[in-house]
Structures are given as structure tokens and as C-alpha cells.
């Protein structure tokens, strides 16, 4: 078969696995939370039901072309992010299209969906959407700074921006993982990770009680379904990125599931403990200690 076609098929397989994993994790994490609170909690397959339900809605409205393609941008952003990353280290099957660009492509491509979604939400003309976007963008700029410093520090450490090379350099036991070899960078990145996941305490962007769920407030039916698909894929793609950069990547799917799940739980734990930050607080917070850690990480890796 045509090698490109094979690649596409393997990429689709990756996408399928990740989508299901993402949907399941959306059910399982609340389930765990519920069990901790001695509740039954939602069924673990609830996310599937919600998506099917939303696609089965019979009416849908649109505010205009940008509103309509906003979710398309969003999902493209999510899938693309996954596609540009090597998922399983050492496997030819699950390298996706990582041959087409390095870490920078991945970092910048994150914004593709964010920007498209923001534009779509804004076309609805709903002030809450605009407020949500304003908050989201403000917060994003803030946590990206320590994140970048951390990533740069890793790049200095490994002298490459190639994700596969970074993963390769971490093989050979957990003592080789970046989080052990470059703890400062890892700290900066993991703090930024909290912001990137958009969970408490950094979830004022959605703020259901105040600005009804922020940007997607006007989205419904199939359009919301597309967004939900992205909600399953995009966080997992980010988790995979962090896993690759900090935790030695994964050589098999079970390892990937385990590692990403544990990384995910880090944001969950923080989220259940801390209350919500206001945007100006979180901006200042990210530009405080995490930023200093990031700078320190760069200085340490560069000079020592």
C-alpha cells in the first residue's frame, strides 16, 4: 500500500484510541470524585451518551459563518495537535505526522483551535462569550510564559527541539526522566500545566454560575458535539505532550494510559483542593513564582 495511506490509517487508529480514552477519562475522573464522596456518580460512559444526545438534537441555530466554523477550528486544533506528536516511542505505527514539524509546531499549533474557537464564540454576539474569551486569553498568555521557559530549559538540556529525540534521551529508567534530571523546568511546566488544563483553580474562564460557561455559551446541538469531541481529544494530546517532555514518553499504549492518567490526576488533585482564582489573580500568580522557577530553570541548565 501507499506509505502515505498507511500513515493516515495509523493516524486514524491513534485518533480512535485517543478519542475513546479521552471520553472514558471524562467519565472515570468524575466517577472517582464521586466515589471519594461516597456517591455513585455518573456512569463511566456518560460522555458518549452526552455526545450522542447532542448530535441527535433536531434543531440547531447558527449566528453566522464564523460561529459555524469556530468548532471546526477547535477540533482541527485538537486533532492536529495529536497528529503532530509522536505518541508511542519506538513504534513506527504511532508516530503520526510528527515528521512534519518539531516541538515548536506543536506549541504554536495549540493556538489554532483557541483562536478559531474564540472567533466563533465572539460571532454569537453574546457578551459572556467575549468575556470568557478575554479571560481565557489573558490566562493563557500568563501560563504560557513559565511553560515556555520550562520547554526552553528542556531544549537547552537536550540541545534539540525534536520531541522524539527528547523522549529518546529519557529512556532507561525513571531516573532519566526530565522531571528527575531537570526538576526546575518540570516544576515550571507542571504548574503551567494546571492552567493549560483549565480546571480549578483556573476555571474562571468557563465560570458556569457567573458567565454561563463562557465562550461556548451559545453553542448547542451538533456544534456543541464537535466541541465535546475536542474536549476528549485536546486534553489528552496535551497530556501526551507533557508525558513526552517530562515523563520519558511511553513505549506502549498501557504505559501511555497510566502515565497520562496520573498526570491528569495531578490537575484533578489541585483542582479539588483549591478554590477558583480570579483572572487578574491567576495572571499575577503565574507571572510570579512559576515565572521565577522558569527563569531559574533556564539559568541552571545554561550555566551549570
Amino acid at each position, binding site marked *: 500500500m501507499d506509505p502515505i495511506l498507511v500513515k493516515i490509517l495509523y493516524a486514524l487508529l491513534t485518533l480512535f484510541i485517543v478519542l475513546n480514552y479521552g471520553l472514558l477519562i471524562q467519565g472515570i475522573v*468524575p466517577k472517582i470524585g464521586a466515589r471519594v464522596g461516597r456517591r455513585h456518580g455518573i456512569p463511566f460512559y456518560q460522555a458518549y451518551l452526552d455526545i450522542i444526545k447532542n448530535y441527535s438534537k433536531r434543531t*440547531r441555530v447558527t449566528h453566522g459563518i464564523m460561529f459555524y466554523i469556530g468548532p471546526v477550528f477547535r477540533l482541527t486544533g485538537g486533532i492536529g495537535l495529536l497528529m503532530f506528536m509522536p505518541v508511542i516511542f519506538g513504534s513506527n505505527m504511532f508516530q503520526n505526522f510528527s515528521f512534519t514539524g518539531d516541538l515548536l509546531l506543536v506549541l504554536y499549533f495549540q493556538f489554532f483551535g483557541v483562536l478559531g474557537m474564540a472567533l466563533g464564540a465572539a460571532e454569537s454576539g453574546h457578551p459572556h462569550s467575549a468575556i470568557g474569551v478575554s479571560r481565557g486569553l489573558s490566562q493563557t498568555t500568563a501560563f504560557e510564559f513559565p511553560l515556555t521557559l520550562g520547554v526552553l530549559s528542556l531544549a537547552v538540556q537536550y540541545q534539540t527541539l525534536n520531541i522524539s529525540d527528547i523522549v529518546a534521551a529519557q529512556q532507561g529508567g525513571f531516573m532519566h526522566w526530565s522531571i528527575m534530571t531537570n526538576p526546575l523546568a518540570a516544576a515550571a511546566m507542571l504548574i503551567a500545566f494546571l492552567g493549560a488544563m483549565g480546571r480549578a483553580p483556573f476555571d474562571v474562564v468557563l465560570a458556569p454560575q457567573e458567565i454561563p460557561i463562557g465562550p461556548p455559551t*451559545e453553542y*448547542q446541538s451538533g456544534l456543541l458535539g464537535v466541541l465535546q469531541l475536542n474536549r476528549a481529544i485536546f486534553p489528552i494530546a496535551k497530556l501526551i505532550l507533557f508525558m513526552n517532555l517530562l515523563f520519558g514518553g511511553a513505549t506502549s499504549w498501557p504505559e501511555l494510559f497510566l502515565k497520562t492518567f496520573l498526570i491528569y490526576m495531578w490537575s484533578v488533585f489541585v483542582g479539588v483542593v483549591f478554590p477558583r482564582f480570579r483572572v487578574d489573580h491567576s495572571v499575577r500568580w503565574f507571572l510570579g513564582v512559576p515565572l521565577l522557577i522558569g527563569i531559574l530553570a533556564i539559568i541552571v541548565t545554561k550555566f551549570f
Partner: protein
Amino acid sequence: MGKEELEKRIVLSPDGEPIEIDPINDYFCQDLPEVEKKSSIAILEKFQNWARSRSLWVLGFGTGCGAIEMRPLMTPKFDAYRYGIQWRPTPRQSDVFVISGYLSVKTLKRVIRSYEQMQGPKYVIALGSCTINGGMYWDSYNTINRLDHYIPVDVYIAGCMPRPEALLAGFEQLKKIIREGRGEGANLYAENFEWYKANQKKIIKDWDMPDYNW
């Protein structure tokens, strides 16, 4: 009546030409609802109904004293989440509208607007006696007596007030109705739109919105 923002007005364009603005026509979609057919593939429709019944998103809108009865459902004691019930802050994403108690005329207007902004198929649970026959407010000058004259109701829960358990039972009933394919309130509304509208307009004297709020 003080709705000057909805009256026609003349504004000057940047070039200084006068433009007439008719807010109701210019700013609101004037389309009327249509009956949305069920899927022609029976099994698909059944599958969809199953999913719909297992994923009930409730609009977070409390109309009367019954609103307080909804809250316990989110607590560990009742834990409505296990039945696929969640609360959504926006009507665009909600399936179920729980009318929780008496409805004054003023609130009814907001209820109609929110109901119409929900996407079909959509369901209404009427909670408490007030929504059935006016309850203790039956002779009030300002509260409605029968909700089903204004929007289609799928499930009634009688009582003043019904306990959260009753509400849960009502949800179970609704699920059954949906699974049986009888949860067609939205289509009922579209079919009898003129009757509903006439009833609504009879009591809402200052009708300041389009006939259907998309």
C-alpha cells in the same frame, strides 16, 4: 409603555444618511418553529431516544419555591448525576426545563423565552400544584393556573411542595416517556403554536419580543 429600545428609531449612518431601525424585525429572527420529524430509521430513533433519556441536561432556572427542591438532587444523598442528569447554565444546551413552582406572569414571559431558546427535542417537568391548577395561588391576580396552556408539559409532579424523591421519580417517568418516543413536546408546541401563542399573549400584555425566540 417604556419599551423605547424596541420602538422604531431613526439613526444617522456614518455618512449622515438616516436609517430606520425596527428593532424587533432587525435584531430578532422572525421565523416560526417547525415540526421536526423523527428519524425515518426506527432503530436509529430508538437509539437516539435511549441516549436522550440517559443524558438529561436540566436548565438551571428556578421559577418558584420549588427551586429549592432541585438543589438536594445534586448532593450525595440523592446524587442525580448517576441517572445522567446534569445542570446546565444556558438554555441552548439544556434538554429539560423544570418549572419549579408557581409562575407569575412576569416569570412566565422569561420561561417562554428560555423554553423557546432550548433546542428540540426538549422536555418540561412541572413541579408542584401551582403549575397544575394554581395551587394555593389559584385566585391570585398575577399567577397562572395551568402551565400546559402556555407550554407543553411532559411530566407533572403534584404536591406542595413535592419532595426531591418525587422529583427523581418524575425524572424516571420522563425517561420512560422519552424512551417510548412520546417526548415530543417541542413538536406539539410547533403544531399548536397559534393556540399557545394566543394563550400567552392573552396574559402577557406587554408582549415585547418576537413570536418565537430562537
